[in-house]
């Protein structure tokens, strides 16, 4: 109905930290880079449930309490998908330090899920998530609104 015209879409994701304060990252199936788990919001859920659902689908982990990390929006996060769809993203990210479940090593959405120490992050970080990682490491006051 909207064709290729630009649409605002909401995505949510999370920094999931284990007991050793390592962060969960996934080697993405679409480009092989390492990013944070997350995905598009659906009708019928709140944005923290979006993060929970996406993290579960991509990693098998069931997240407990979430804290708002940041809201990233505006034209600098606009993108065009390979099929020509144009979106303007409103990205909500959370921090989670408590979860249950067993980490799924890989599935259709992620080639590999693993926890990385903050001073030993992978060097092929998903370009679009670099700003989240930088801000996470910066210890700025939360939540970050950009």
């Amino acid at each position, binding site marked *: *109905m*909207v064709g290729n*015209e*630009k*649409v*605002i*879409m*909401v995505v949510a994701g999370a920094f999931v930290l284990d007991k050793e304060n390592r962060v969960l990252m996934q080697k993405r199936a679409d480009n092989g880079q390492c990013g944070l788990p997350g995905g598009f*919001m659906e*009708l*019928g*859920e*709140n*944005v*923290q*449930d979006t993060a929970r659902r996406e993290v579960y689908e991509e990693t098998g982990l069931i997240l407990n309490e*979430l*804290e*708002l990390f940041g*809201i990233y*929006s*505006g*034209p600098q996060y606009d993108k065009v998908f390979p099929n020509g769809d144009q979106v*303007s993203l*409103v990205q*909500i990210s959370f921090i989670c330090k408590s979860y249950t479940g067993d980490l799924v090593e890989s599935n259709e959405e992620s080639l590999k899920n693993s926890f990385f120490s903050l001073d030993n992050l992978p060097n092929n970080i998903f370009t679009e998530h670099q700003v989240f990682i930088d801000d996470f490491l910066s210890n700025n006051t939360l*939540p970050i*609104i*950009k």
Partner: protein
Amino acid sequence: MSITWENSYLGGLRKKVGPQMIIAPAARAIIQNEKEEILFVKRRDNDAWVMPAGGLELHETIFDCLKREVKEETGLDVISAKPIAMYTGPKYEYTNGYGDENKMFAVVFLIEEWTGNVLQETDETYDAKFFSINNLPDIPNLYLETIEDLEIYKLNGTVILK
């Protein structure tokens, strides 16, 4: 000058998708004076007292949206603000007065610093007043809820996620 409905992002999108439910990101402003009274403005289209708020446009961040809507509806300039709540859950999916189904995605900001003089009249409003929490006018329940959440936020400083 406010963007007209036809020229707004949501107005343009509605022409293509009709009244079906869509996610509508928006910013809402809680503006308090030194007496902690809260600013409400009276809408021309339905005579309701509301907090300054409005929908996200394509070229702006959520903070730009907040500043723009506050400027359009009150004449005030926001210097700094922080989010205190987000209303995004299924409880906030509704049909508006024009028959359109919206999934509210509201980021509620407490304005920490602002300047300027409140305009009594703008394109969208014809009255503006600071009300004490104990002496509120007839306002939709959504704003009573927002005020309650502000009080909860002030106790523990955690953004309320609903």
